[in-house]
């Protein structure tokens, strides 16, 4: 299997069968690991990085979850392929811009990806649609243990797993959830939530991590600290923060419907109209419109089985995915035309909205 064929198959996120959770779109856990006695990627020579890449790939090839996987060196990938992998959250922006010796191994269903020679020798990631922190942890924990049978990790009994950046010391774990929080955004409460979440030692970021915007009202919430708590404790704490954000979002939705249902229905109805009829759509606008339709599904304006279409389009409306469909370079305006075309086609057969009196059930 090649990267090209991997990219043409649906990912866990674009898979039509998996995502079912109204507010948590996806759960991700990543572990930072390094090999003992070797310089971190940012401080090592090309030859050393090449060696690490080889050693890690070989170790990965022997693990059960990566039996059927695709491996690629970053230098072999086209810019477009890298962008698509970023849009699917399978590699980071940093890796896509990194030096020689960087690589990635991705399993067949695109739920596990391992970046090699990013900031650390290994960045192992497990991704699951919906709210599945525990499941994701058990998968990544098992893979990590398998790898550890084959690789000597840099580890100290006091500081835990040793990482290039001291902010990742200890567990080396970042657990995160991608949350869809339209009502908190519409009602202007997001800032308050961000502050409260920060105080609990968690971080809120946009869809594509640090520095990205929160188009589509999608946010990533993850643990900030990695040392001084066990993995289970971090996951438990994150889980309860997520639960409480879910509760706030649900309350905000109830409040919006109670106080101003016509305004909310108008937003959803207009979004539907634009998606069916527009001829130019930027990815940000598309994200925002899709976000409103997803909210519509949660409010029973659209049937539940439409959710998978929306979640797939969240990914497929991204610039790299639009470009990939035509296989040649596009100006961003041409992409906006193609994006609108694609969405018009998708929404021509989409269920009609039904707005009930109180908008709920």
């Amino acid at each position: 299997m090649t990267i090209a064929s991997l990219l043409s198959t649906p990912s866990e996120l674009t898979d039509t069968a998996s995502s079912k959770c109204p507010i948590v779109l996806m759960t991700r856990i990543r572990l930072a690991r390094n090999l003992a006695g070797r310089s971190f990627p940012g401080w090592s020579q090309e030859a050393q990085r090449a060696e690490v890449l080889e050693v890690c790939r070989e170790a990965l090839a022997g693990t059960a979850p990566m039996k059927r996987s695709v491996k690629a060196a970053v230098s072999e990938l086209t810019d477009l392929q890298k962008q698509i992998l970023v849009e699917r959250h399978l590699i980071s922006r940093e890796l896509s811009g990194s030096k020689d010796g960087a690589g990635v191994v991705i399993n067949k269903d695109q739920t596990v990806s391992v970046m090699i020679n990013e900031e650390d020798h290994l960045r192992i990631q497990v991704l699951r649609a919906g709210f599945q922190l525990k499941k994701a942890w058990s998968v990544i924990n098992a893979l990590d243990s398998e790898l550890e049978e084959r690789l000597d990790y840099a580890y100290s009994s006091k500081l835990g797993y040793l990482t290039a950046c001291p902010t990742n010391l200890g567990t080396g774990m970042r657990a995160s959830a991608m949350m869809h929080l339209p009502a908190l955004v519409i009602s202007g409460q997001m800032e308050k939530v961000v502050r409260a979440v920060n105080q609990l030692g968690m971080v809120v970021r946009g869809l594509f991590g640090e520095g990205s915007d929160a188009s589509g009202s999608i946010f990533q919430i993850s643990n900030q600290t990695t040392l001084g708590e066990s993995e289970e404790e971090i996951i438990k704490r994150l889980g309860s923060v997520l639960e409480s954000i879910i509760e706030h979002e649900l309350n905000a939705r109830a409040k919006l419907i109670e106080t101003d249902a016509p305004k909310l229905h108008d937003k959803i109805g207009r979004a539907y109209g634009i998606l069916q009829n527009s001829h130019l759509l930027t990815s940000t606008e598309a994200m925002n419109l899709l976000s409103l339709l997803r909210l519509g599904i949660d409010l029973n304006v659209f049937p539940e089985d439409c959710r998978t279409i929306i979640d797939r389009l969240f990914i497929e409306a991204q610039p790299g995915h639009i470009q990939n469909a035509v296989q040649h370079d596009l100006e961003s305006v041409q992409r906006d035309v193609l994006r609108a075309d694609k969405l018009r086609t998708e929404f021509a057969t989409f269920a009609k909205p039904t707005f009930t009196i109180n908008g709920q059930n």
Partner: protein
Amino acid sequence: MASPLKCDLCSNQATVHLTQIVNNKVHKVDLCESCAQAKGVTDPSGFSLADLLLKASLNPDNTSAGVRCEQCGFTQNDFKKHGRFGCPHCYETFSSLVEPMLDNMHKGTAHTGKVPQKSLERKTLHDRLGELESSLDDAVKTERFEDAARFRDEIQQLKQAFEQQPKSAR
């Protein structure tokens, strides 16, 4: 008012107070006028004060800023530039730099999570083998053949145990 501070070098009243921050630690120096003069702190040109501060900040710093990680050649300045370390061993080399940082950065300062059990077992085994092999050499050299035989058997046993482990890294 608090009682007047005494000079750090003699016991006269201190009138010159220097504060500097080195390695995130505040160092305070209190000197009397004559000691300060002797050290050049009160030179009216003002240049020597800057000099002293510079030297003072370089001197204690020299012990750490000049240190290179013996494994990868990384220095403290490199860390200031990159915000990342050079290799795992840097955490030992620069422990005096790392430790004060952790408090603000993390929930705790000691790891309580997953332990790479297999890695550690391998390491223990490896270290033990090394010890035994040098003991064996010693025993052979000093013609303590009974001891040598014992070490040899033990090495054999350990190696068997080692091979039963899944394919190891090295």
